[in-house]
Every structure is written in structure tokens, then in C-alpha cells.
């Protein structure tokens, strides 16, 4: 049993108290005296030329401070992209400018054209209606394959085509893969779409810009997963503000799921306008605005081919993917279909030859970027769907086919450039079959049949690369920044501790779990430890929270900083105890001389550090504060087996999820309660994607699913109770905590499991249906059954 409050204990979350009493401080709760309100006027056409903007009537309306257009941003940089992809011919990707406000052309519904700033939001909206904007509509570019045809309308006139890049991975394997597929005993082919999604954190984005002219200091309060990254991108690339004059604060943030990683135009705007107007400027997104201005997720169209020998041994895998970038490159967009997708195509299997081709395409739609899982769900979905289809075609049980091809020896170098350090895929599969009562499924299916329903069971096994960091690796892969994490541990004189981390918590409970780690290491009560995050003025440089990296990278930095603290404290203790430093042991918050009962309490040591009357000043500086930057050697590789049991109503096509079991290997666990919560949330998003969520445009590029009236969010009655397990543990070999990350797993493993389950149900019901594109909404399932 873990000790109460230490690593492994399901400690209740300390942040809950403020959230449960209405005392959370979210960005929209921040109001600065004298603030003005910004209202963004956005394009309602997908593609068009801006002929003129007449703001004269609007400028004169009550309360209006100023109407901003692209003209006001001459000399200001575009919103930058943080990742460069080199195509398969060695050329750099095409990278269009992404202006803060549209320059000359609008390129998606929602593209900001002008901003009205006024004393109240309603005044700004009134004036916005008085703007006279003349736009000539152009043919929109929507279908990715059409967009690449010769003579297609271009989204960006200054680029040579709508192709961002044509990426091959691993290019050297291309011919060998083609040969292997040609000569194989059997090839299973599947064409599928990974549907476009909207992340929809429940808190819409907000930005409040403030400017202090007395010392030329800017402050931006924003709903961000990584305030330091925003400071870097906005300060250095957009507005030209040196970092020491720019503070970015991300206070309580109401969920992110990827959509709050990126630097957005609205953040740059509010920061810029606050200085221009010499008053604070606030922008709060409405939900309908969020649908057309938050980066979207997924949107891949793929053809995948899996070649096997007669025993079902995987010989080669080839994929051809079109990935939608939208109208501009969002911060990490180019990396999603490439390095976060292509590198995962081996999955859990020993397939020796893999070739991944990805064509990233510009279209007149909202930019697409990482959404929970980012690239890895797309990889897992294709692979686990094609494996399932292959099992049916080969007449091999889907569990058995997977087992025949599992990687069993570690470390394992895949043919797609990554090395899995640990894992035990049979163990998670065993756990899944046990917990989901797989053996009893046939009896349950028979029972459903009696009631006129079709029951199905679907399995998926996933692998993901988490702990997004290794700077030398991601640098080779095109990242324009290092992705280490930092932590400062500041021990106060009386022994309490503030840990400043560059990770950000927006639901993940870092304030609790990070404190558990430090508490365990030092042996003092967790209530003595505060975790401080989300403010560039308080924490050292940080890279933020995404890619399930917080504990594996940010937590490791904190461990390293705490180790430095302990080392120094031991020196002080050795002095106080008049013992050799090597003899000092730290246990339960006290320093003891090994083999004696001589001891000094943590608080006495920390006091000595700050009240150095009896202190080896010649050997050590006073004070007890240490910073560490941690850059891991590799990604971490969580994996797991997921099982979904569904019932299909053959009369209506309605799918009901009866049960969902997740058996994960996350390595070591710091707080199992939080880990389970992360999996639950991921499952809901994955099930949502597979069953009801869909971001849809019409043939004019109008956003049809632009509110909760048409974008189906999973509700409580759409979901069952989940069964989750994380008892299969193969600790990560290269970080001090042995942790792997758990934030995205649920969203990665669940879509293929659900689709496999529905296909299973339909086939058991005698329907010759081999694939349905997500979401498996009632009408689509019914249509598939009746086609």
C-alpha cells in the first residue's frame, strides 16, 4: 500500500475545493478596471477577396474606441507555425503567412476580418453590424483530393499549389514495401476517413490584454495549456516584445484537449490593442465563435493495405493519407499527420516493412491541429480497423491475429524510427478479456438476439508515443523549439515548499499529483507543498501540457530539482549534525546519521538555510531553491487493450454502448484516481468521435455543425459506466518516475474498438458490412444495413 498522500495513493484533489465552491479563477473571471471589449468580425464566406472595409459609420458609434483591420497590423508578424516538415524530396513544406487579421483575402468561415473595440461588448457588436465589408466570393477549396488536381483553385495565391507537403516515411522503404505487398499471400485493404472534430473544452477561449506604460510591460491573461510557449511565439514572432516585458498568465483553464495549445490571433490582438488603446482589452469567445476559430482536430482520409503470409503474420503495411491542414498552418499542425502519426504505424506489431505517405493539403476550412491524441488516434484507428478486417478475411479470431503479431521483446526498434522501451501487450490483452468477460459474450449475444437486437464485441490494441519532448529527436523531426520541461523547487525557511512548474494543469490535477511526488521524496506532508503553474512571471521557462507529457517530462524535471534540494539539504544537515555528508539519510522528513539516532528535522535544516548563523558559508550558499530542466532520452510508450460491447437496434440503426473496458499499461502510477479519471474522459471523447461527433461543412464551405444544436457532444446518457484497469505495469525505463502518461490513451484506443464492435454486431446479424465511416450515427448504420 502506498502511504497516504504519497506516490500511488488516490489522494483527493486539492484544487476541487475552489472549483466546487465557485471560487475557481478562470480567465473570463478576470476584469481589469477600464477594460474595453473586443468583438471579432469574421468571414461568413469560405473564400473571398476583400475589396474594401468601410468602418466610418462604425467608428462613430457610441462607445467605440477603434475598429482594427489588417492595415493596423502592417509590420506585425503572422501567427507562426512551430514545426517544419521536410517532404519526401527533401524540400521544405509550403508555409503561408497567417495574418492576425485577414489581409486581402478570407480563407475560411470564421477568418477574422476586423475587430471592433468598445466600452461594452454589446456596443462593439452594434458597431460591428455597421461595418461595410465588400467581399467578392471565390470558389472554395474543400475536397482534399480535388484540391491537389492541376488547375485547382488555390487557397494561397503565393504558394505553388494547395499541397503543404508530400511526406514519405520511411522513404527508403518505399520500394521494398511495394514488393512485399505484391508478393504477399493476402492483402487486406481499407479506405477510411478520420472525421473532423472540434475539441470543445467547456470553457471557451478568452484573452485579456493589459499594458503598463510606466515600464512598457505587457500582460496577457489567456486560456492556454502553455503560457510560456505563447510568450515565446507571440513575443518573438508576432509582436516583437522581449520576453522580460511580456508576462503571460493562464490561470484556471477549463479544459484544453489540444485546442488551447496554439497561439491564436485573438491573443496577439488583445495584447497589441491594449498598448494601442492604452487600456485593457478583453475578448471572450462565444461557443458559436469557438466552432469557427478554435483549431479543429483529425480530418484524415486514408487508404491502408496490410500484407500477410498464410498464417496471418504481418509482412508489410502501406498507407496513403490525405491530411487536412485547413486554411493556415496552426502551431503544431504539420507534425500531427507526420511525426505523431507515421512513427506509430507499427502499433503493437512486428510488421517488418512499413511505408507511410501523407499529403497535407490546404483547404478553405478552419485550421486543423492536435486534438487529444493527435496523430496517434489516426494511426491506431487505421491499423486496428485493418487488422480487424484482415482477421475476418483470413478467418482468424481478431484476438488471435493480434497475438500472433505482438511485439514481445524490448527494447524494440520499429521500422518507423522509434524504439519502444518496454511493454507487455499479451498482459493487457489478457486483462481485457478477463475484465470484459469475453468468454461470456456469446451467451449475451444470444440474449440480445432474443430481444431483436444485434450485439457485437470489438477489440483494439494501441500504442502511443507520449512524453512529447526529447529535444534532439523532435528537433530532427522538425520542431522549431526544444520540448524539455523545467521546474523550480523553492523551499521556504519554515520548510514549506513552492514548486514552480512549466507544465500547466487544466483538469489534470497537477496541484495534487505533483505534490504527492515531492511529498514522497522529502517525506513531509503534501499540505506543505504548493504547485505553482500558469504564469510566466512565476515559473521558469516551460513547454506546457500536451501529448501526455506533464508527469513524464514536467514531473521528472520536478524530481531532478527536488533531488538537488535534497542533496543540498543533506550538506546542511551534515554540518548541523557534525557528520559526513555521505552518512546522511533522509527519511520521513528527517535527516539522520546512518546507524545512529542522531537526527535533525526537515524544518530545522530549511531554517538553517535561511538563518545561516550556524552554517558552512564557505562551502554552501544560503537559501534552498533549485531549478532543473529535464529532457528525456526517448518518448514513453503507454499501451493497452480496449474492448467495446455494443448493441445495434436493427430497426433504427441506433448503436448503444453497453460496456467499455480499458486495460492499460501506463507504467508507474502516482495517483490512480486521477489516472482513471483521465481514461474515462478520453474514452468519452473517443466514443463521441466514433458514434456522434462530426464537424461538417457544406459544399460552399459553410460550417453546418456550428453549435451544440448540430455538433453532438457525448452526454451522460450516451455512455455506460466504464471498466478501467492499469494493473499491467512495465515501468518506463528512462525517466526517474517510471511513468508513461495517460491523458490521451482513452481517446486513442476507443474509436477502433467501437467501430469494430458495430461491424461485429452487423456481421453476426447477417449483414455484409465491412466498414462504416465515423461517426456511426444511427442513420449511417441503418443505411449500411440497408444498402
Amino acid at each position, binding site marked *: 500500500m502506498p502511504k497516504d498522500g504519497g506516490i500511488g495513493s488516490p489522494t483527493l484533489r486539492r484544487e476541487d475545493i475552489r472549483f466546487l465552491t465557485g471560487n475557481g479563477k478562470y480567465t473570463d473571471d478576470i476584469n481589469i478596471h477600464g477594460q474595453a471589449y473586443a468583438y471579432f468580425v469574421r468571414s461568413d464566406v469560405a473564400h473571398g477577396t476583400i475589396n474594401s472595409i468601410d468602418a466610418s459609420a462604425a467608428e462613430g458609434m457610441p462607445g467605440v474606441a477603434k475598429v482594427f483591420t489588417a492595415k493596423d497590423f502592417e509590420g506585425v508578424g503572422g501567427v507562426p507555425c512551430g514545426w517544419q516538415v521536410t517532404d519526401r524530396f527533401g524540400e521544405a513544406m509550403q508555409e503561408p503567412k497567417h495574418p492576425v487579421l485577414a489581409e486581402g483575402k478570407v480563407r475560411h468561415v470564421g477568418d477574422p476580418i476586423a475587430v471592433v473595440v468598445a466600452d461594452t461588448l454589446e456596443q462593439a457588436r452594434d458597431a460591428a453590424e455597421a461595418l461595410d465589408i465588400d467581399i467578392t466570393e471565390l470558389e472554395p477549396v474543400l475536397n482534399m483530393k480535388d484540391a491537389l488536381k492541376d488547375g485547382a483553385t488555390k487557397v494561397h495565391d503565393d504558394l505553388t499549389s494547395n499541397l503543404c507537403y508530400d511526406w514519405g516515411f520511411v522513404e527508403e522503404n518505399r520500394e521494398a514495401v511495394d514488393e512485399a505487398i505484391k508478393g504477399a499471400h493476402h492483402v487486406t485493404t481499407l479506405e477510411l476517413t478520420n472525421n473532423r472534430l472540434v475539441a470543445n473544452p467547456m470553457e471557451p477561449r478568452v484573452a485579456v490584454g493589459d499594458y503598463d506604460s510606466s515600464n512598457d510591460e505587457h500582460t496577457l491573461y489567456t486560456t492556454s495549456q502553455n503560457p510560456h510557449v505563447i510568450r515565446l511565439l507571440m513575443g518573438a514572432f508576432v509582436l516583437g516584445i522581449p520576453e522580460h516585458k511580456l508576462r503571460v498568465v493562464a490561470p484556471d483553464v477549463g479544459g484544453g484537449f489540444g485546442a488551447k495549445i496554439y497561439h491564436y490571433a485573438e491573443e496577439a490582438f488583445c495584447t497589441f490593442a491594449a498598448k494601442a488603446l492604452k487600456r485593457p482589452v478583453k475578448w471572450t469567445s462565444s461557443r458559436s465563435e469557438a466552432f469557427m476559430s478554435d483549431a479543429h482536430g483529425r480530418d484524415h482520409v486514408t487508404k491502408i493495405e496490410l500484407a500477410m503470409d498464410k498464417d496471418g503474420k504481418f509482412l508489410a503495411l502501406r498507407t496513403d493519407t490525405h491530411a487536412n491542414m485547413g486554411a493556415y498552418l496552426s502551431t503544431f499542425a504539420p507534425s500531427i499527420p507526420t511525426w505523431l502519426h507515421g512513427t506509430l504505424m507499427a502499433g503493437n506489431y512486428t510488421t517488418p516493412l512499413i511505408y507511410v505517405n501523407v499529403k497535407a493539403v490546404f483547404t478553405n476550412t478552419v485550421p486543423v491541429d492536435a486534438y487529444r491524441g493527435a496523430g496517434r488516434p489516426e494511426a491506431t484507428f487505421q491499423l486496428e480497423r485493418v487488422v480487424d478486417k484482415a482477421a475476418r478475411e483470413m478467418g482468424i479470431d481478431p484476438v488471435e491475429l493480434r497475438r500472433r503479431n505482438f511485439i514481445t521483446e524490448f527494447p524494440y526498434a520499429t521500422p518507423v524510427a522509434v524504439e519502444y522501451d518496454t511493454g507487455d501487450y499479451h498482459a493487457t490483452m489478457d486483462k481485457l478479456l478477463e475484465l470484459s468477460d469475453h468468454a461470456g459474450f456469446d451467451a449475451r449475444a444470444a440474449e440480445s438476439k432474443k430481444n431483436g437486437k444485434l450485439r457485437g464485441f470489438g477489440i483494439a490494441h494501441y500504442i502511443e508515443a507520449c512524453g512529447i519532448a526529447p529535444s534532439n529527436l523532435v528537433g530532427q523531426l522538425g520542431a522549431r523549439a526544444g520540448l524539455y520541461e523545467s521546474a523550480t523547487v523553492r523551499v521556504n525557511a519554515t520548510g514549506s515548499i513552492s514548486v514552480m512548474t512549466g507544465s500547466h494543469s487544466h483538469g489534470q490535477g497537477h496541484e495534487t499529483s505533483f505534490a504527492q511526488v515531492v511529498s514522497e521524496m522529502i517525506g513531509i506532508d503534501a499540505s506543505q507543498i504548493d504547485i505553482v503553474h500558469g504564469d510566466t512571471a512565476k515559473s521558469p521557462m516551460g513547454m506546457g501540457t500536451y501529448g501526455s507529457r506533464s508527469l513524464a517530462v514536467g514531473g521528472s524535471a520536478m524530481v531532478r530539482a527536488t533531488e538537488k534540494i535534497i542533496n543540498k539539504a543533506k550538506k546542511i544537515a551534515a554540518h548541523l549534525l557534525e557528520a559526513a555528508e555521505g552518512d546522511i539519510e533522509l527519511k520521513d522528513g528527517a535527516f539522520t546519521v546512518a546507524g545512529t539516532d542522531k537526527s535533525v528535522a526537515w524544518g530545522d535544516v530549511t531554517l538553517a538555510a535561511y538563518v545561516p548563523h550556524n552554517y558552512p558559508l564557505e562551502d554552501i550558499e544560503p537559501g534552498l531553491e533549485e531549478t532543473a530542466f529535464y529532457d528525456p532520452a526517448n518518448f514513453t510508450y503507454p499501451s493497452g487493450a480496449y474492448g467495446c460491447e455494443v448493441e445495434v437496434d436493427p430497426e433504427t440503426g441506433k448503436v448503444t454502448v453497453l460496456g467499455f473496458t480499458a486495460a492499460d499499461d501506463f507504467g508507474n502510477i502516482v495517483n490512480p484516481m486521477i489516472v482513471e479519471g483521465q481514461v474515462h474522459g478520453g474514452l468519452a471523447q473517443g466514443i463521441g468521435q466514433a458514434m456522434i461527433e462530426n464537424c461538417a461543412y457544406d459544399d460552399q464551405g459553410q460550417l453546418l455543425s456550428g453549435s451544440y*444544436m448540430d455538433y453532438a457532444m457525448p452526454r451522460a446518457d450516451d455512455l455506460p459506466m466504464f471498466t478501467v484497469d492499469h494493473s499491467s505495469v512495465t515501468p518506463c525505463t528512462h525517466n526517474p518516475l517510471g511513468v508513461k502518461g495517460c491523458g490521451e490513451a482513452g481517446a486513442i484506443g476507443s474509436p477502433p474498438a467501437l467501430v469494430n464492435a458495430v461491424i461485429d454486431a452487423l456481421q453476426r446479424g447477417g449483414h455484409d458490412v465491412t466498414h462504416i465511416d465515423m461517426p456511426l450515427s444511427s442513420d449511417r448504420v441503418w443505411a449500411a444495413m440497408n444498402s
Partner: protein
Amino acid sequence: MTNVTMTVNGKSVSGNVEGRTLLSSFLRDDLRLTGTHVGCDTSQCGACVVHVDGLSVKACTMLAAEADGAEVKTIEGMANADGSLSVIQQAFQDHHGLQCGFCTPGMVMTAAALLKENPKPSETEVRDYLEGNICRCTGYHNIVKAIMAASGQDVSAIAAE
């Protein structure tokens, strides 16, 4: 501008509002009770649920003027008199029924309304009652569990843990 007077969390308050002022704006902007959140504009997400005269309503879809003379309760008024968490709030913490916390005020207010109507709801009844409250973080598992626990039911048999 109209003058409105109402009792909010037991205290009488009044203010001048425009016709169009929503109850959610009055609470957040005038009274600085920012625990009531606004997460959508189509009355679907439920982050803004408060109680008006004992009934749950979406504060973003009710005019402040319509609440004139009413008894309003918000998340800020849900803790016990001594400041400790109420049974429902405590159950949310105990069962990890919240993550980012943004939907949480609405969830707690809806849960309170449910338990008043139906002191021992089944899992299905809880899920049905939460139809107008969207959570993007928890997958609802632990919210449902928390509400059932708050009703005094034994939730130890519910999967996971």
C-alpha cells in the same frame, strides 16, 4: 434600465439592469459571483445552472428582469454554513467527479435539484437528469457515481476501483 431586487444565496441584492441583461451576466458582472459559468450560447451545456425559487434554470437563458423578486441560489451558496463542503460537493471531491471544474458548478446545481426531486435515483435516472449538462473531461462516470453516493447509495460496486 430597470431596477431588480432578488435574494441571492440568502442575501438581498438589487441593481439596475437593461432589459437584455441575462441572469448569468447579472450574477457574474454585477454581483461578481463568477462561479456561474457560461459555456455555450444555445442553452445546452448547463455550466450556468442556478436555482430560481428552488427550481434549476439556465441562467444564460433567463433575463435578470425575470428573476426580480426571486430567491436565487448559485454555487457560491452551496457550501455548509461553516464553509465546509456540502454532501453533494464532498461527494464530487471524494469520487473525482470533476477535472477542469468549468462545468462543475452547473453539475452540482443540477445534482442538487435532482436529489430534491428524487432522493435515491438509479444510474439511469441520474444520467437522464444530466441531459442538459455537458462535461468534456470526466466521461460522466465519476459524476454519476458522485451523485449516487451523495444520495446515500453504496457505489462501491460501480466499476473502476
